[in-house]
């Protein structure tokens, strides 16, 4: 008698510890092999785009902080404010631009550390989590001394930043930059040489280059697939045009390549921070902008490189003190769609490894 087989629908989430938020994956399985993955999102949808239409440009800074990617709040502020400043022709003083660059790179470091730690837990390497959060704590303390907040800063303002650095901050930041490469080596020792880690990541979840472009993948995911694209180089904003850094690109497109891209990005971030602290010019930190600033009629699309990828803000103003329409092009949203392509054909046990390697934040996906 022939064995009757059928496909199995498996529900992962919304409450699943490895989905990094409230994500439901409807996985269709043929035995152990994944036939199709259908992510079901929207559990964290807060309609930030609608809420922003009813708040002034200054109030929205506090809103994008929370409503979007909560791991990298400053990157959201930067994306939004870049759009506001380009549309309004608001001038940002040189010191503020450099300060923003420093803060954004620290934000990238802390965000990548969260990613590395949680992905380590997903793959069974609990120790990495503890080490990553130990270093992240130092970065959050540095943030706290400048902005007053650890996760949600509300530090950038239209036309500059809120406060200048406290005395002695640059020394502490440089001290961190000196000791961090040692910690980065620790992570490499723990993971990069580990045969179990390699077996779970190398060659798993491959996203070819042409598929990455078609599916709209961006950021480290795209760079791991061989797309040499970084908004910081292609459309330099703030002080990125004046610092030297490399864009790590790998051809393999698997989970291990995505890991290597982010590890190398952390090293590049340190390079940028060092240069920025060295070149930090004195002077004004904020140009004069009204609390209820009115932007001229028009539309603008500003792109920034958030830790998760290409964060774009499409802003339409009708001449009021509130935006007429804000479209946030969230990097996680596009990357999560590319995930459906990455997972096809892999085993069910690889779901966690692949999902973790994409580094999605569900608040960013749903907005």
């Amino acid at each position, binding site marked *: 008698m022939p064995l009757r087989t059928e496909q199995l629908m498996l529900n992962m989430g919304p409450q699943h510890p490895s989905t990094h938020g409230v994500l439901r994956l409807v996985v269709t399985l043929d035995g152990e092999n994944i036939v199709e993955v259908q992510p079901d999102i929207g559990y964290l949808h807060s309609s930030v785009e609608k809420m922003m239409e009813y708040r002034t440009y200054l109030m929205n800074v506090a*809103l994008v902080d929370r409503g979007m990617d909560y791991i990298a709040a400053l990157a959201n502020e930067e994306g939004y404010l870049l759009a506001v400043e380009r549309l309004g022709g608001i001038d940002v003083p040189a010191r503020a631009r450099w300060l923003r660059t420093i803060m954004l790179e620290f934000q990238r470091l802390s965000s990548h550390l969260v990613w590395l730690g949680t992905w380590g837990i997903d793959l069974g390497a609990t120790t990495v989590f503890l080490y990553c959060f130990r270093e992240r704590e130092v970065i959050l303390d540095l943030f706290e001394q400048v902005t*007053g907040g650890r996760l*949600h800063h*509300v530090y950038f303002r239209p036309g500059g930043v809120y406060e200048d650095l*406290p005395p002695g901050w640059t020394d502490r930041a440089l001290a961190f930059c000196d000791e961090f490469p040692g910690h980065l080596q620790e992570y490499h020792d723990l993971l990069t*040489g*580990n045969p179990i880690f390699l077996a779970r990541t190398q060659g798993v979840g491959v996203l070819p280059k042409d598929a990455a472009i078609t599916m709209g993948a961006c950021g480290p995911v795209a760079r791991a697939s061989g797309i040499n694209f970084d908004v910081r180089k292609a459309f330099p904003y703030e002080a990125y045009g004046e610092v030297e850094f490399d864009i790590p690109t790998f051809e393999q497109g698997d989970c291990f390549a995505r890991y290597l891209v982010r590890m190398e990005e952390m090293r590049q971030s340190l390079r940028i921070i060092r240069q920025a602290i060295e070149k930090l010019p004195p002077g004004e930190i904020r140009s004069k902008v009204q609390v209820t600033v009115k932007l001229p009629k028009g539309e603008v699309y500003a792109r920034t490189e958030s830790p998760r990828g290409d964060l774009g803000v499409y802003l339409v103003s009708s001449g009021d003190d509130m935006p007429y329409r804000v479209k946030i092009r969230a990097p996680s949203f596009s990357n999560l769609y590319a995930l459906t392509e990455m997972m096809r054909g892999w085993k069910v046990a690889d779901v966690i490894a692949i999902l973790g390697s994409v580094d999605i934040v569900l608040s960013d996906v749903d907005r």
Partner: protein
Amino acid sequence: MLDLATRAWEAVTGLYLGLRVTILALVRPKNTVKYPIEKVNVSPRWHGLLALPIDPETGSDMCIICFQCERVCPDRCIHIEATGRAKDRVLTRFDIEMDKCCYCGLCVEVCPTEAIVFVPHYEASTFNRSNLLYDLDDLRRATPKEPIAHGVVRIGGR
């Protein structure tokens, strides 16, 4: 055979490198803070609770009732009422719904007289949601209405 030997060698070195890191961590100073017993210091810019400081000269708060903070609040959690006209205006009500507050600091930024400030206090959680509506007295005292947990040594409580 050679392949097996290479893989075994890689496994051993990988294990050695990883274990060296973890064992070295044993002799490093601890990073953990035993939180409710020990407290961490926050920076002077810390976005903690909001407060209306008392001016020592006049014995009253410094609010000039300009409604700037109420207008700029993204969550609309500040409610101000006043009586009287022009210079005789008196603050009758200054409520902040701390459960809605997002600690963004825009009210502190726009205040022309520094009448509303952040205090470095971070234990604001209560057992009852209604305790999170801070009125004028609470804001002048600038401490939470309820200690965070009973039986915990309160440091600098009221």
